[in-house]
């Protein structure tokens, strides 16, 4: 049994090296963001930012004269992503419950329609959705970003939650109904508490897709103070591209940093959530 252990060790070692290489692009972003402008383009590449500077962070966070501020964009992204999560989780759970647990005419039609809509590419509704949001007066507003984002993920949420609700044992519900609980009470007091893992998975999925969406906010927001992070970063790049990579990389690093922290803290949970939503989707 010696050989397999050596093999495993070599494998682990090789994978660790690969993992480090895998992270180098991110490391390079952070390293660049901390360098003096003159040092950034120096060859051979220097992997230790010395002397170190915070000037690029200062520039993208507080400079008033260029495009959008990254700090504000970050807050916008957070509001949009959390708002989307709230709407998606509530509407999907409410819709999935009767589709899984109640019998009523039209149930299969509704479900087929929702699942079929998963095939609709977002790009197809881009233009008419823009017209709609503009007519509602929702351009450059949070609701103009949150509601379409939520509508995009809703059908998937229903699909995911229905699968889960179908597998739940019915006894508790039946007991509650016999005790005179209304369907709403049954739903909120029994079904939802039992569904926490899958609700968390859906929340993670919705958060990520809203957080990362780029095309819709690119067209639906006309004011820099309302830009979410991806759009603000793209514009940061246009504004600085002929001068220095420093501020651009500082912006990129700022966009990655909180996720890095969240990810280190909740790695297991996030991966689990992705696994659940991925396999069922």
């Amino acid at each position, binding site marked *: 049994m010696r050989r397999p252990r050596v093999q495993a060790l070599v494998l682990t070692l090789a994978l660790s090296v690969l993992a480090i290489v895998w992270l180098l692009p991110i490391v390079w972003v952070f390293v660049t963001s901390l360098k003096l402008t003159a040092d950034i383009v120096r060859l051979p590449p220097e992997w230790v930012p010395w002397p170190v500077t915070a000037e690029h962070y200062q520039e993208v966070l507080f400079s008033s004269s*260029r*495009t959008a501020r990254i700090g504000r964009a970050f807050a916008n992204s957070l509001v949009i992503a959390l708002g989307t999560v709230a709407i998606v989780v509530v509407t999907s759970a409410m819709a999935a419950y009767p589709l899984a647990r109640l019998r009523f005419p039209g149930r299969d039609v509704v479900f087929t329609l929702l699942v079929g809509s998963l095939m609709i590419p977002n790009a197809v509704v881009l233009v008419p959705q823009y017209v709609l949001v503009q007519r509602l007066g929702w351009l450059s*507003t949070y609701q103009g970003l949150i509601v379409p984002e939520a509508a995009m993920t809703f059908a998937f949420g229903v699909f995911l939650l229905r699968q889960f609700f179908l597998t739940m044992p019915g006894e508790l519900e039946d007991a509650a109904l016999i005790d005179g609980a209304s369907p709403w009470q049954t739903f909120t007091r029994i079904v939802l508490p039992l569904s926490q893992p899958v609700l968390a998975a859906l929340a993670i999925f919705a958060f990520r897709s809203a957080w990362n969406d780029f095309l819709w906010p690119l067209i639906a927001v006309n*004011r820099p103070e309302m830009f979410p992070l991806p759009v603000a970063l793209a514009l940061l790049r*246009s*504004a600085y591209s002929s001068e220095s990579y420093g501020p651009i990389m500082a912006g990129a690093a700022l966009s990655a940093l909180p996720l890095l922290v969240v990810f280190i803290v909740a790695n297991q949970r996030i991966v689990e959530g992705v696994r659940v939503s991925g396999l069922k989707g």
Partner: protein
Amino acid sequence: MAQRPVSRRTFLAGAAAAATATAWPRPGAAQSKATITYWNGLTGADGKVMDELIERFTRETGIRVEQQRLPWADLYPKLQVSVPAGEGPDLALIHTVEVPHFANDGVLEAIDEATATGKGFRGDGYLPATWQGGTFQGKRYSLPLDVPQHLLYLNVKVMKEAGLVGADGKPKVPAGRDELVTMAKKIARGDTFGFAIGTSNPGRYTWGFHNLLWQNGANIYTPDLKRAGVSEPAALEVAEFWAGLGGPLGIAPPANANCRDAFIAGRLGMWIAGSWNFTGLREAKVDFAAAPVPRLFKQPVVWSMPHQYAFPKPKSADRNRREAAWTHVRWLTDHVAEWTLKAGQVSASRKAHGDPRVTGDPVLKTLLGQAPNWQVGQPTPKWVAAENLTRPVIESIYTGQKPAKAAMEDLARQINALPD
């Protein structure tokens, strides 16, 4: 799509009424002085100069200016969609070639000459081409501020190494295309390039390509503006030269190189680029000389692109804000010499041209000296769309993806197919 006559989905009407768009922060009734919103694309170092001038303006007049600043390429589509949605600014700074299509699409408010004259803006106070650029189909839509234009930058250190500096220590200026190529070949070796036109992504630099077209008497549209002129022999000659720059001549940097970095790093000898670069080059302490754009084809035309002040159509007229916007344009026009000195852009109005600080600066003097050769884009609402079509085509020529002739003929077809 503010008005949609064909059909209205009534079930949305309720939602529309309930929806509250967050509007620009409006000044409260208690506030006596107006706040105006002002959009511009001054995302470079010139933005900081503008900030300083605006701070002074607010101190002197009490009028607050809220700037919205986006890179030009992003600013224009935003302006186009914001104005019909009632989200447009009180004042915008735009390039001359944007005037026709914004005017045509009803984005800009027409300015009647009486109003302009009443505020002290008169044609004889301006260089004629810049003043003319503010009009479309006989109506005025904007007032010129300054004249960004091309300039030939010569890197003294690089030229010296190639033996192209005279006894007086001044770098030699090429007199024509052949001489430019010969000189550039002397400079080019390894990762040092002899000549470039454009800042970042020289392969896609339409403004440089336009400059060469105009020098050869060609243009994007034929003079009657009815069809594309890019497949005519004079234009094809320019396209062939463009292809040579990207490849066979072996003198220019690759399509997505950053020419400004290269020039600063001493890896580029002769560089045709915008006048907005020179203050930055001075700050970076590059030893450079500036010369007029050389005559590479038939005429010594210099590409220029005056910035224009325009008033986007508001949702509802607000006299107070419009007056405040006028006050701002007036104030900046009166202080344009400061703008010229710090941002490096010569003014469109003549008054500042006699300022000794301006005439005493060799680069600004060179820029003003080019005035007789200035040319701008054609006054058609399709100009900008045609320019967007041109960008990838000239890049495919520059990178050798497509032969010049076939690419330009294809471009002509695309331009002719643009909708009215």
